[in-house]
């Protein structure tokens, strides 16, 4: 039976179970004739009965389904090994050939030997499939019957249902957490492999970055140096430029929006500003590479400066524009959250609006504003696309914003795109970089969270 059909059947069982249990309990209630006492609603007994039948059966189906593929593979392999068929190809590829034959034409196109294996494969598959169906369905039926007999008016149905809901919510929460933990561990694990090949000190403090490793000894230009300092300096340079652009602009637009703009302007301007955050970064990227970078180069040349056609300045400027909404939107929120009576208190003492903003509102909202800036900073550090397109790939160790630099994220992209083998120092370096990046943004986020939490204690 197809899985979808099986699940549909299980749902029908569950629905049946629900109605039966509800019926049973309401009948019992009616016979008792205790009108005055508050009783658990019959539908909760229905939910519990339905879920006791459905959840274990679904779980069983899930595990059997997971086990099915390895089981079939090992059975077929055994069959091939035990019979006289010569699998002179790789076994995986051989199996793949057979499994992909899902139409009669494709089966007919196989070699006679493979057709024979295919027959066997088909048999095994059908049997396992049937077994699974039988196991799951009988489990479900047993559970329905068991549930029917067990459920009575004394069952703590509401509490059980609440527990089940809690369990489902916990599961949902843990999936996100487990994924994060999994990613962290995989990055950590690959990084330690990298640090096995390249000493951690020369990675963190080396000043030369040239990850091309030599495959043959006589290759030229493949020195393989993994000093990450130029990348981090480049990242910091570009992020710094971006913050230099976004913090003043974002803060000032937030102040305008929350303190000066009328409600009509605000209703239009705020969403428009937030659209900035919705533009795909690749669009910013070509804007940076095709418009801003040449403009800066020409401007620099007219002033007698030598500007690279891909410069940190161009990338930083455009990235700064991109993260304005992070600063402005959050700052606007925290400024608006400052109680009106503080504003009135200051105005009532004869302060002007700008005095009130500078002396009362910004100090009161400062932690929230800092939180927004740090969020923008971690966004800037993690940004890739704009830098790939506008700042280049050259790992120059420089703080001159007019030169081409590269960042951690860009190098990760170049290390991992294209055909790669996943055990060379070159590709493993990406994980080490990722780890560093992760730790950096994590620290920034922790600081931001901490600051924001402190902010809540400020007034009131």
């Amino acid at each position, binding site marked *: 039976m197809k899985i979808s059909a099986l699940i549909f059947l299980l749902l029908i069982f569950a629905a049946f179970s629900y109605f039966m249990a509800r019926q049973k309990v309401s009948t019992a209630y009616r016979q008792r004739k205790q009108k005055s006492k508050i009783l658990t609603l019959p539908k909760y007994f229905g939910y519990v009965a339905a879920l006791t039948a459905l959840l274990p059966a679904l779980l069983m189906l899930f595990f059997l389904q997971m086990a099915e593929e390895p089981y079939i593979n090992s059975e077929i392999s055994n069959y091939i090994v035990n019979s006289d068929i010569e699998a002179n190809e790789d076994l995986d590829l051989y199996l793949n050939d057979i499994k992909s034959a899902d139409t009669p034409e494709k089966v007919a196109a196989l070699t006679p030997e493979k057709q024979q294996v295919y027959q066997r494969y088909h048999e095994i598959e059908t049997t396992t499939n049937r077994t699974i169906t039988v196991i799951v369905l009988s489990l479900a039926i047993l559970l329905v019957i068991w549930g029917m007999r067990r459920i009575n008016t004394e069952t703590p149905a509401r509490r059980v249902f609440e527990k089940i809901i809690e369990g489902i919510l916990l599961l949902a929460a843990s999936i996100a957490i487990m994924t994060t933990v999994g990613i962290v561990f995989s990055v950590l694990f690959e990084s330690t492999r990298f640090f096995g090949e390249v000493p951690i000190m020369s990675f963190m403090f080396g000043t030369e970055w040239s990850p091309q490793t030599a495959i043959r000894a006589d290759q030229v230009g493949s020195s393989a140096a993994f000093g990450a300092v130029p990348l981090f300096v480049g990242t910091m340079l570009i992020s710094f430029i971006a913050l230099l652009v976004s913090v003043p602009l974002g803060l000032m637009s937030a102040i305008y929006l929350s303190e000066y703009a*009328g*409600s009509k302007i605000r209703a239009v301007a705020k969403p428009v500003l937030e659209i900035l955050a919705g533009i795909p970064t690749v669009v910013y990227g070509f804007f940076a590479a095709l418009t801003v970078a040449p403009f800066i180069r020409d401007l620099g040349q007219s002033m007698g400066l030598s500007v690279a056609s891909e410069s940190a300045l161009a990338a930083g400027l455009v990235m700064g524009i991109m993260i304005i909404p992070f600063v402005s939107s959050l700052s606007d929120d925290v400024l608006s959250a400052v*109680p009106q*009576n*503080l*504003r*009135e*208190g*200051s*105005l*009532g*003492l*004869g*302060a*002007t609006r700008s*005095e009130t903003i500078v*002396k*009362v509102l910004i*100090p*009161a909202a400062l932690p929230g504003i800092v939180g927004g800036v740090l969020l923008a900073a971690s966004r800037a550090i993690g940004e890739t696309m704009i830098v790939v397109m506008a700042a280049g790939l050259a790992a120059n160790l420089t703080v001159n914003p007019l030169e081409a630099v590269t960042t951690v994220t860009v190098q990760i992209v170049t290390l991992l795109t294209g055909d790669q083998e996943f055990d060379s120092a070159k590709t493993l370096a990406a994980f080490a970089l990722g780890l560093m990046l992760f730790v950096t943004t994590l620290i920034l986020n922790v600081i931001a969270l901490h600051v924001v939490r402190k902010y809540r204690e*400020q*007034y*009131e």
Partner: protein
Amino acid sequence: MNEAVLNDLAEPNKPDHAGPETEDSLNIEYTDTVGQPLCEEAKIRTKEVNVYYADNQAIHNVSLDIGENEVIALIGPSGCGKSTYLRTLNRMNDTIDICRVEGQILLDGEDIYTKKQDPVLLRARVGMVFQKPNPFPKSIYDNVAYGPRIHGLTRNKSELDDLVEESLTKAGLFQEVKDRLDAPGTGLSGGQQQRLCIARTIAVQPEVILMDEPASALDPIATAKIEELINELKENFTIVIVTHSMQQAARVSQRTAYFHMGRLIEVGETDQIFTNPAHELTEKYITGRFG
């Protein structure tokens, strides 16, 4: 002070709603203001003031004089416009977009609603204390020094120190906080916070102080202290106080104005208003028939 506390405790809890239904049930025609709205030496003169929130008229034709160095109490049921009227006196309503004020308001004979008048300077002359204590999230010292710093009232640090101490002393708070002037003002108790706000206001040396239910968020003991303070402050300042507590109005004010549905119903000597009100609405309000 004990008497004040007892009075406050004895005051019945009045439900915070009034308005159309009571107006209908009372079925009383509005007349011109009863009593003596004008005085000889007026600090503030308001003539035929109308206030609108968008299309909603909140104040109807209020004419009232506020005398030099007097304490005048504005009383009336919730939503009667007394706070709105108070906020027109230092143009605090300017901060509300949809609010529009018509009529004439003269401070020392000068119209405060002309284009020439800077509302910021006006508010330095007409200070305000709010219903809920609103100290800035700064130190006690910085709270009081805020106004003087903005207006450049002192030439150096020691003058500022003196002014802060003087203001806190006048507000009856200095003894309690002198050892912790660097502690945040928000850490004080509600009553202390309100006295800090009063200290902050008098540090700017205003001529008039507007108080919008300054004790409504405070316990009876703190309320008594605030009332004591008002009695001392009236030596130097003209005080307009909005209050929900009629006992409070009776204790602190020389004149009382009764507002109802945006209209000024009756003004008079406080004693006369509470013992022998001239208007039926006033009588019904002070005897607790509604409010």
